[in-house]
């Protein structure tokens, strides 16, 4: 006999919990659902667009009755549960329907607050909470003209806008002196008010409603001070309150909401609660993202896994009245201890304010242009040091320099066929379709289903915008500290720390120690753990080839047709005629279809079959050439100009310096690829200021630049320091590489790493502390002792490494 699970409350939080549960344990429970409304589960955050006539009710259904049938769920619609009999473990609905439960899930949501004034029960006085409220408003708006909305908060303004769209004359009355005072500062609030006034909505500020007038049906309202206005429809939108009546009656401990622990259980362990009715660590949530996080945790516990814990959510507000964008998060008012950066462009209707404390974002409020809201939010949550790019902060993440989507950066401006994700060829309409037809809510959902934003990530902001644009309502994603992958809840930092602290030496021992959920990890965590082991224990931890991405396992780049490319090292871009001949001979001998000068001053041979690789390498090895690591998370090239040896402007010998640095650093495994360049003068022909480590010669010595990137997002380097001698260049270079290797997360390039930890931190480690710099440099040199072995030479000849990697199994098949 299966256990019985009963859900009370057929809304988004409860049904999402069931969906999460069915994903992990589809057959564990007999499930019954009670809903007081006569429908399946619908998307409550989209009620505003329905009221505005931009969507219809069919558009916002999330789970129709078929869904319940397909999943063998008994659904009682239109039945309100009025009693929980905990002793006999059953629930009883108003009509007498009774269901027994082994586990009970309460998701009773919240109720609108009704202000206790005369006339509150008149016909034509509604709240804004569910489909029947919306139907009632639409009925009245089709015949009558005057609407009054009580409450100038998020919900009230959405209702006001929607009713205006339906052709009514709308007045909003608000108790305070500014709209949405809990989500906006006075500046943004004033801009919002002006925008809404321009759209024809009237406001009565600092006004309290004394009575609603009428006998059976409302015809007007009277305010304190005696002013009266006509009203055929009154919407009370002054707030919501968790619906805890049922739980309270059953003596389940409640405060403002039903109090739950980190596994979403109430004081009765058999009874869970999720959603707006819940109070967790003194917080009550009304946004959808926290509810979904709770749903995940609750499902995990119901599925008897029990490892997920809810630790609360950080939220932000986003109002989406079509064409009116605003966003706020954190402490956006600021105080004596904070500073603010403000941009105000009245003509364009744009206002942005970022509140900073100790070089970190403390809060933000934006009006008119909210594209970067989620970026600020993420930095707030991650406590990112912004000192390195403070000057660009207000201009947002997608300022000039982004590639792959033609400079368009607002969802509203895009055509349906607009290619949003240039890596995977995903158009706007693909995302919109996936979101609506598959009921997606989060960025991760969209990534999984469409692949958009899952490669280089430069379109993440756009995809989030389309998500918000499509969902329309106040949906907002609340990202959390990211676990390394789906196999674990530990973050990159935690995994690396554990490896060091516990002296773990193998992937197996890391996974066992951290209680990995999958037997041997996945393609995301294994390469990362392998890297952390290699970089933490040079010479001690053994490399695991099966946890390397194919390019690093085969020491060649896989191409789209499954062939490989071979790129030998060309030290500092200097090449001899003999080497050129050897490359040409190899190209002839192996019938190479494409020979290309690469972007990093080398020569690539393309279109080689995998089993040919050891022979090609062997031929090149014989002429003194070795692997160029063009496939690796490691040093790629050191680009140079000819420098003072030839160039009349050259101030130092940049080519020799390039060769020196390349000889020092090749072969070292790093979190991601690493590029260097050395220019002989500030004309910078080697483009050193878009490299991970760039050296620019000046008359008095060398400038050292770090953290540049010429790829997805062009980012110039930042100046680390100026040094005089070649020896200093070498020491700083080695120390910087080692700091990057020890500090950055796997697959994090130097640019985002520096943006995360801050230039101040890097300077502290490399400049202000000579001892530390020397120690870093020594650690690097030590690890190089084990790393600098040419992988090509190791894999050629009779007893080369990993022979099975390159030779297919021989089979003679004889069948007729």
């Amino acid at each position, binding site marked *: 006999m299966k256990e019985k699970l009963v859900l009370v409350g057929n809304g988004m939080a409860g049904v999402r919990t069931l969906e999460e549960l069915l994903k992990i344990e589809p057959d564990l429970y007999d499930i019954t659902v009670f809903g007081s409304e006569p429908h399946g589960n619908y998307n409550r955050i989209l009620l505003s667009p329905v009221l505005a006539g931009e969507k219809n009710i069919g558009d916002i259904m999330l789970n129709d009755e078929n869904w319940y049938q397909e999943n063998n769920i008994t659904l009682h619609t239109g039945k309100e549960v009025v009693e929980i009999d905990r002793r006999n473990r059953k629930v009883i609905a108003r009509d007498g329907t009774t269901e027994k439960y082994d586990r009970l899930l309460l998701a009773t949501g919240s109720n609108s607050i009704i202000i206790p004034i005369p006339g509150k029960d008149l016909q034509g006085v509604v709240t804004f909470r569910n489909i029947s409220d919306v139907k009632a408003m639409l009925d009245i708006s089709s015949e009558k003209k005057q609407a009054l909305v009580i409450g100038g908060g998020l919900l009230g303004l959405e209702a006001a806008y929607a009713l205006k769209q339906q052709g009514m004359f709308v007045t909003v009355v608000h108790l305070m002196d500014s709209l949405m005072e809990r989500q906006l500062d006075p500046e943004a609030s004033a801009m919002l008010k002006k925008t809404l006034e321009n759209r024809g909505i009237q406001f009565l500020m600092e006004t309290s409603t004394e009575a609603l007038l009428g006998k059976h049906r409302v015809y007007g309202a009277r305010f304190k001070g005696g002013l009266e206005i006509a009203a055929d429809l009154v919407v009370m939108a002054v707030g919501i309150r968790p619906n805890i009546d049922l739980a309270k009656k059953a003596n389940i401990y409640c405060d403002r909401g039903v109090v739950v622990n980190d596994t979403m259980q109430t004081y009765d362990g058999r009874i869970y609660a999720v959603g707006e009715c819940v109070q967790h660590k003194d917080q009550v949530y009304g946004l959808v993202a926290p509810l979904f996080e709770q749903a995940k945790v609750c499902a995990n516990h119901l599925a008897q896994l029990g490892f997920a814990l809810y630790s609360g959510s950080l939220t932000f507000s986003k109002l989406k009245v079509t064409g009116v964008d605003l966003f706020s998060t954190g402490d956006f008012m600021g105080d004596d201890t904070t500073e603010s950066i403000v941009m105000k462009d009245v003509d364009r209707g744009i206002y942005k304010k970022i509140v900073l404390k100790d070089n970190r974002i403390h809060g933000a409020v934006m009006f008119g242009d909210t594209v970067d809201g989620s970026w600020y939010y993420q930095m707030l949550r991650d406590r990112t040091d912004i000192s390195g790019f403070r000057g660009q902060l207000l201009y947002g993440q997608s300022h000039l320099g982004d590639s792959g989507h033609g400079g368009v950066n607002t969802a509203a401006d895009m055509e349906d066929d607009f290619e949003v994700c240039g890596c995977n060829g995903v158009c706007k309409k693909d995302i919109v379709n996936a979101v609506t037809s598959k009921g997606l809510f989060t960025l991760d959902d969209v990534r*999984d289903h469409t*692949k958009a934003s*899952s490669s280089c990530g430069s379109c993440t902001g756009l995809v989030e915008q389309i998500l918000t644009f499509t969902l329309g309502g106040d949906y907002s994603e609340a990202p959390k500290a990211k676990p390394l992958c789906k196999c674990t809840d530990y973050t990159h930092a935690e995994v690396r720390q554990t490896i060091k602290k516990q002296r773990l030496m193998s992937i197996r021992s890391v996974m066992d120690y951290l209680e990995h959920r999958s037997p041997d990890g996945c393609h995301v965590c294994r390469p990362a753990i392998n890297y952390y082991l290699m970089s933490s224990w040079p010479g001690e931890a053994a490399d695991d080839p099966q946890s390397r*991405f194919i390019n690093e396992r085969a020491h060649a780049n896989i191409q789209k047709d499954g062939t490989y490319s071979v790129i030998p090292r060309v030290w500092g871009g200097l090449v001899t005629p003999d080497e050129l001949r050897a490359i040409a001979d190899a190209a002839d001998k192996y019938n190479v279809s494409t020979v290309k000068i690469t972007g990093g001053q080398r020569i690539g041979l393309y279109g080689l079959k995998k089993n040919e690789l050891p022979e090609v390498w062997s031929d090149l090895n014989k002429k003194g050439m070795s692997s160029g690591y063009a496939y690796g998370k490691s040093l790629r090239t050191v680009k140079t100009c000819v420098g003072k040896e030839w160039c009349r402007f050259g101030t130092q010998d940049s080519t020799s310096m390039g060769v020196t640095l390349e000889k020092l650093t090749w072969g070292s495994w790093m979190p991601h690829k690493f590029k260097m360049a050395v220019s002989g003068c500030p004309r910078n022909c080697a483009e050193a200021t878009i490299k991970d480590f760039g050296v620019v010669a000046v008359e008095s010595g060398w400038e050292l630049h770090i953290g540049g990137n010429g790829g997805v997002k062009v980012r110039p380097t930042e100046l680390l320091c100026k040094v005089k001698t070649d020896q200093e260049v070498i020491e700083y270079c080695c120390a910087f590489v080692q700091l990057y290797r020890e500090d950055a997360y796997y697959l994090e390039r130097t640019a985002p790493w520096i943006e995360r930890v801050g230039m101040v931190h890097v300077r502290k480690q490399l400049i202000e502390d000579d001892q530390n710099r020397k120690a870093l440099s020594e650690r690097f040199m030590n690890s190089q002792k084990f790393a600098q072995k040419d992988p090509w030479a190791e894999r050629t000849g009779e007893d080369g490494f990993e022979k*099975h990697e390159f030779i297919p*199994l021989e089979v003679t098949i004889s*069948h007729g």
Partner: protein
Amino acid sequence: MVDWIEIGSVNEIPSLGSRVVHANGEEVALFRTANDEIFAVRDRCPHKEGPLSQGIVHGKRVTCPMHNLVLDLSDGKAVHPDEGCAMVYPVKVEEGRIWIAWQSAAIPE
């Protein structure tokens, strides 16, 4: 009629790795899991024809090296939410030797 063909020894495939077999103009990837189970899948990803044999093996799954599509090795189906299906070949292991059924290769539903 099932046409069983002997391929080689389990030990010739690295644990959590794969080898390719060329036969009949087809390339078949043989995978070995951590538990020494062997699976045979046509070496073409249903997404963009990537060589699955070159991917990272984890559990009973492989991740295509081209665009990270994850396939279940036992039935060739892409793991939700990815879509698509690669052809799988029945495999048996007897005394450490691997056999696959060439003719009865089939695309599951």
